[in-house]
């Protein structure tokens, strides 16, 4: 398809417009929350959360009489994802198991359970089950307007809460102990931030799928960090990167009917992360290499007879 035709479809084609809008919103919400997950060194949480959501989707599907209502499946996913992240925290606090191991245990257990349930549903039920497997790799092609509305409402809620508590979350990420000494309820703010992350991750499950969802959360923030040393700017860039990857992934996946959306978005993200690592304004590897080379030249030109490192010889 030509570029002009693509743009025409983006504006006029209802299906493509819906899909692209949904993916862009998803990228924006995850980009913002991902910045905090990355800075709190909680990148794994996105992974354990999304995997832990799978059994919730299946159980909600069964309990609600094999429904396909996205909101009900989403609530199931949220409850189970939230339980998983709380369970990981409880394990870390009450045993000698470290956080990364606890997240790994929760991730594997919940995902295993979810996958068994998914297989049972798919082998037993008739036509009703169609579509649950999209939660593995994601499928933007199945998005309808109602889905996008749900995504929009939840994203706006999550972003508003994040904006309202921005100062508190910033200090929580930088120095949680100092935050607590000022009298802010550290644990409750942590729980709130995790809950917001649960919302944006769960919203993305049917588009990106549980397996690759962590990239949607973390990669935009990792790319954004290379361009700025200010948190507010980092969040802004992260939202932009997330949105751009969402749009690219959605379009590619829509044009090639057999391409699942999750991998398409993740590949777009990967390209942006690599580009940022190489050319990022603040810490790009290319600039660092050039700077080192320039410094070496300057040093050779001015003080080659007494290099510093040879002082002890």
């Amino acid at each position, binding site marked *: 398809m030509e570029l002009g035709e693509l743009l025409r479809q983006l504006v006029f084609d209802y299906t493509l417009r819906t899909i692209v809008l949904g993916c862009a919103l998803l990228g924006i919400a995850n980009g913002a929350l991902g910045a905090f997950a990355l*800075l709190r060194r909680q990148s794994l949480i996105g992974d354990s959360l999304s995997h832990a959501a799978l059994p919730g989707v299946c159980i909600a599907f069964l309990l609600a009489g094999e429904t396909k209502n996205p909101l009900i499946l989403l609530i199931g996913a949220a409850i189970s994802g939230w339980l998983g992240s709380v369970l990981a925290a409880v394990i870390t606090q009450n045993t000698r198991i470290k956080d990364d191991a606890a997240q790994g245990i929760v991730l594997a257990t919940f995902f295993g359970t979810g996958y068994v349930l998914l297989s049972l549903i798919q082998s037993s039920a008739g036509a009703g089950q169609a579509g649950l497997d999209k939660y593995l790799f994601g499928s933007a092609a199945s998005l309808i307007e109602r889905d996008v509305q749900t995504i929009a409402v939840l994203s706006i809620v999550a972003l508003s809460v994040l904006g309202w508590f921005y100062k508190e979350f910033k200090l929580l990420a930088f120095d949680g*102990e100092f935050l*607590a000494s000022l*009298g802010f309820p550290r644990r409750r703010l942590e729980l709130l931030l995790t809950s917001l992350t649960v919302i944006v991750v769960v919203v993305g499950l049917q588009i990106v799928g549980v397996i690759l969802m962590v990239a949607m959360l973390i990669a935009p923030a990792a790319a954004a960090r290379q361009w700025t*040393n200010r948190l507010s700017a980092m969040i802004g860039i992260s939202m932009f990167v997330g949105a751009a990857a969402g749009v690219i992934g959605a379009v590619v996946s829509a044009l090639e009917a057999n391409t699942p959306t999750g991998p398409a978005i993740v590949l777009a993200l990967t390209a942006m992360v690599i580009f940022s690592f190489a050319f990022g304004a603040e810490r790009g590897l290319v600039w660092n290499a050039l700077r080192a080379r320039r410094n070496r030249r300057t040093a050779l030109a001015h003080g080659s007879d007494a290099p510093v490192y040879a002082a002890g010889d």
Partner: protein
Amino acid sequence: MTPNPTTNAPAIAVNDLTVAYREKPVLWDIDLQIQPGTLMGIVGPNGAGKSTLVKAILGLVKPAAGDVRIFGKPYHEQRQLVGYVPQRGSVDWDFPTSVLDVVMMGLYGKLGWGRRPGKRERALALDSLEKVGMASFASRQISQLSGGQQQRAFLARAIVQDAAIYLMDEPFVGVDATTEQAILTLLRELQHVGKTVLVVHHDLETVSEAFDEIAILNVELIAYGAMHATFTAENLRRAYGSRIMARLSMLEPASEVAPASA
């Protein structure tokens, strides 16, 4: 901010405080009264519970028994009176923020929920940076600071809190001579204007110059009080064991150890 003048309670009163991580006691039955205007150092071997004592005073760790009073009242009613300088190494200095931003964090408690720092907060934070000789670093990204500059940024964040009591956890660790001098001066200035300052300190060689009073801790509180009466060979031996004594003999004011080892 001045403490409630109706009470003449000690600035900090620690009563029968016991703190345990899992089964193991980290602090055992601590009783400690610190009068307003005191500049006190806390020393003790590694794992003596020095940081835990500070965190218990701040309500950051829950005691198994006992309590802490700030000017006669529980911490949560008095937290505006208490400023805290955590260990420098406890945070990620690669965090995307500026020095001025870090200092303004000291005002978050007074700002309260949802309100963002504005012009007034920037001015206060700049003032505070001036006091630690860091005004020209205000817009610097924090990852570009040296260890000593990081420490001074943390001190500025505490000063801007304008508290009556300051609790500092190892402010002298890994800092350059300039910063060490700046901190010593600052401690004296704080004491001069009537602040109560409690400092976790690791270096026995400098402790008697830096502080007027000392608390010697090793899970139990071995002794506390005026430097000359408390910083004795006997008390140090009880906290550190006898091996350290030879190394310390030259510092010992009322030396019981033969100076031959020095």
